[in-house]
């Protein structure tokens, strides 16, 4: 898998390689800040007064790299060549489709008071996006 990914990156032109660098950086930054928030955020009782200010800041920090990640990803999509754009848009569409279908299904389950799957929507979206992109890379990397 890693070998395919490295071969794939090596085949990209200089502009795409340049545009991918900040995407990788902000994806890593977002992942670390999100993980830190998950690990260190205190469990609240649902009232605003009980949360310290640092907890609000910790929860807000991932928004910054997330926004910059989206900005740089959009720039990559806009500037990359037509095949790359097609593959990324297909992966995004597949991720959205899976998230929409399963997310709606989870809402229905919520009506049956089965709510433990609701949070999976985002995971499914991301996993489908990655799976679709990786399978396209395998198909086209020769």
């Amino acid at each position, binding site marked *: 898998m890693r070998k395919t990914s490295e071969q*794939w990156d090596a*085949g*990209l*032109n200089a502009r*795409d390689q340049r545009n991918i660098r900040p995407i990788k950086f902000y994806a890593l930054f977002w992942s670390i800040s999100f993980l830190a928030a998950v690990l260190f955020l205190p469990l609240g009782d649902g009232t605003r007064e009980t949360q310290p200010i640092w907890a609000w800041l910790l929860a807000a920090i991932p928004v910054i790299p997330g926004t910059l990640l989206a900005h740089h990803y959009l720039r990559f999509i806009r500037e*990359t*060549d*037509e*095949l*790359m754009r*097609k593959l990324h848009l297909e992966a995004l569409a597949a991720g959205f489709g899976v998230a929409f279908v399963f997310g709606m299904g989870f809402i229905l389950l919520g009506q049956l008071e089965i709510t433990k799957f609701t949070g999976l929507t985002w995971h499914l979206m991301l996993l489908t996006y990655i799976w679709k992109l990786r399978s396209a890379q395998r*198909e*086209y*990397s*020769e």
Partner: protein
Amino acid sequence: MNNRLRVLRAERRLSQAELAELVDVSRQTVNAIEVGKHDPSLPLAFRIARVFGQPIEAIFSDGLDEAQKAAE
């Protein structure tokens, strides 16, 4: 869609990466066009035709001409 990209590239001793740089796409895109996995957009087809100094229809065809000739 059929194309003569691999033949033309070999005649001019260009690698996929070199052609990709000349027409401003990735090497994967050149490869995908050559093996018929991707049909280029019209602007890209024009850029490729310009590199080889040939009209688009001399490089790309939809396969109908060959089918008609075979029928005759």
